[in-house]
């Protein structure tokens, strides 16, 4: 399949030793298991994608309604419905084999053990390039605290996942914290090879006639262009705090948006919600990056990472 795509070599990036043809990655939960997009785009043209969050066992998810649109974004409370790590390895991976694109298995659980179990299952899967730990789930064992909001709990989980994993480990940061740089340092200190950020911000929307939340679950995760300025700021903060490659996420819907993250310090970017309303956005951004390099006479995309000019402290 590779033969059919002429990759722009200036767009290639490396994260934790993995080669990506370009820095454009489909975000977890918005790109299904990749195959859903095969009819819409040439999967060989994007850098990679992150799977829907995989747990050790299949999960039903929360009752509907699960999504509600807001200004510039949407709230979701999918409840992490997924086919389970085993089914992904057995049913999806074989079908993905023929694509030359990086596959990131997004992993989550409700306890450290859950995560380790899912990783252990996924270690068997051929063709997975890296793991991305979604640490924004409430930990049932610790009374519902969100692992990703506590540097100590996140570092502990990172360390255990690092040991269990046979593949590079990306940890995905929760933005619902006071100090994301501190969280990032703790997680990198615990052995993460890369960080991706941001996950969704916790939000709520109320139907003023029923006086109920518009989501069955109550709260949901806010995504889309509305959160982009927060995400860009956080990527910039984390880039100043740690030395591992970053994957920028949050409201990217165009090549200009993607470049904001790269200039702020990201090596690659993920596109989430925009895939829903512009299903070919990923390849449009890939093309747009090449054009930007032409227009600005930049040697390659890597030269832009963290290239922000600061006049002020």
């Amino acid at each position, binding site marked *: 399949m590779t033969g059919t795509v002429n990759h722009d070599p200036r767009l290639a990036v490396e994260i934790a030793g993995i080669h990506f043809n370009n820095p454009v990655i489909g975000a977890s*939960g918005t*790109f*299904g298991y990749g195959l859903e997009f095969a009819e819409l785009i040439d999967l060989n043209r994007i850098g990679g994608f992150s799977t829907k969050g995989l747990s050790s066992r*299949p999960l*039903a998810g929360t009752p509907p309604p*699960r*999504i509600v649109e807001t200004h510039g974004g949407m709230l979701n409370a999918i409840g992490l419905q997924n086919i389970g790590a085993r089914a992904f390895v057995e049913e999806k991976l074989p079908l993905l084999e023929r694509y030359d694109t990086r596959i990131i298995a997004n992993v989550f659980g409700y306890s450290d053990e859950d995560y380790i179990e899912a990783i252990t299952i996924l270690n068997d899967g051929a063709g997975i390039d890296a793991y991305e730990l979604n640490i924004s789930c409430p930990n049932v064992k610790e009374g519902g605290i969100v692992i990703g909001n506590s540097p100590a709990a996140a570092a502990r989980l990172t360390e255990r996942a690092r040991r269990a994993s046979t593949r590079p480990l990306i940890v995905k940061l929760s933005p619902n914290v006071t100090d994301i740089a501190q969280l990032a340092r703790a997680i990198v200190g615990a052995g993460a090879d890369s960080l991706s950020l941001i996950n969704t911000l916790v939000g709520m929307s109320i139907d003023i006639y*029923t006086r109920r939340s518009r989501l069955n679950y109550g709260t949901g995760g806010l995504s889309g262009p509305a959160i982009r300025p927060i995400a860009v700021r956080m990527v910039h903060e984390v880039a100043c705090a740690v030395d591992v490659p970053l994957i920028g996420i949050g409201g990217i819907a165009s090549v200009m948006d993607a470049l904001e993250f790269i200039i702020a310090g990201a090596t690659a970017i993920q596109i989430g919600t925009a895939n829903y309303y512009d299903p070919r956005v990923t390849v449009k951004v890939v093309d747009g990056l090449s054009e930007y390099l032409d227009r600005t006479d930049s040697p390659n995309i890597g030269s832009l990472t963290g290239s922000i000019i600061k006049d002020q402290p």
Partner: protein
Amino acid sequence: MIETVATVESNLEITPGYRLLTLNFDEEVEARAGQFAMLRARASFEPLLRRALAVYRVAGKRQLSFLYQILGRGTEQLSFVERGGEVEALVPLGNSWPVEMPERSSVEASRRAIVVAGGIGSASVLMLCEELARARIDTQIFFGAASGRVASGCGLEDFRALGLPLTITTDDGSLGERGFVTAPLERHLRDEVSKKSLRGADSTIYACGPWPMMARVNEIAARFDARCLVSLEAPMGCGFGVCVGCVVAVKTDGPLGYASYRRVCTDGTIFSADTIRWEVNAMSH
């Protein structure tokens, strides 16, 4: 499924708040009765998500029409697009209404169809009715709307033009029978079953409308042992199966597990009514 930018042939107001949008595509689109599209006015920045609209009519290989009600931000933005304007479209999506040929071998009880349309749910069944008529299946249409004006907006004239038996109800009694469309439906089934000693099972009910209407149609169908298919609505993030936002709760044998929910967009929109857990409503309104 094609993902493209369609050009507006026309975007006509039928009655205030109801419009018929006709789009020209640069590729051939094969849409079957009951399928839908995800649409968004191209030049608009808000809302972000495309809106699901049933294919109302196929006007040629590259032309589709959509009948829609202006409800909120998305349909309002669509209503502003004029002839020559552009609409982002993903189409066709979802499964389609199954239409079986009547079993001509059976002399006594030919199969019959009952189509129940509630409000703008009508948009999903016009092509179905045409197909049933073409297949010469004995078809009864029950058409309910809030008022006579809304009925027009929901395409009543197009349904009338089919020449099929048509029972109209309006909530306010301004046209046809006053009350919900499920009342004459129930009467009809009772009469049919008693008078002609037909079994309910000889009828297939096709329903599309508000959730409470469809839940009630399901109850009636169950009572008369009629087969019942419903086209469901749900808030849709993507329309092509990736967001898993549009699910409905379905009956499963085992405990609640992965199979407890199905996506309206790709597993439906058409489901057998008896598989749905009607008490778990997919819509928040």
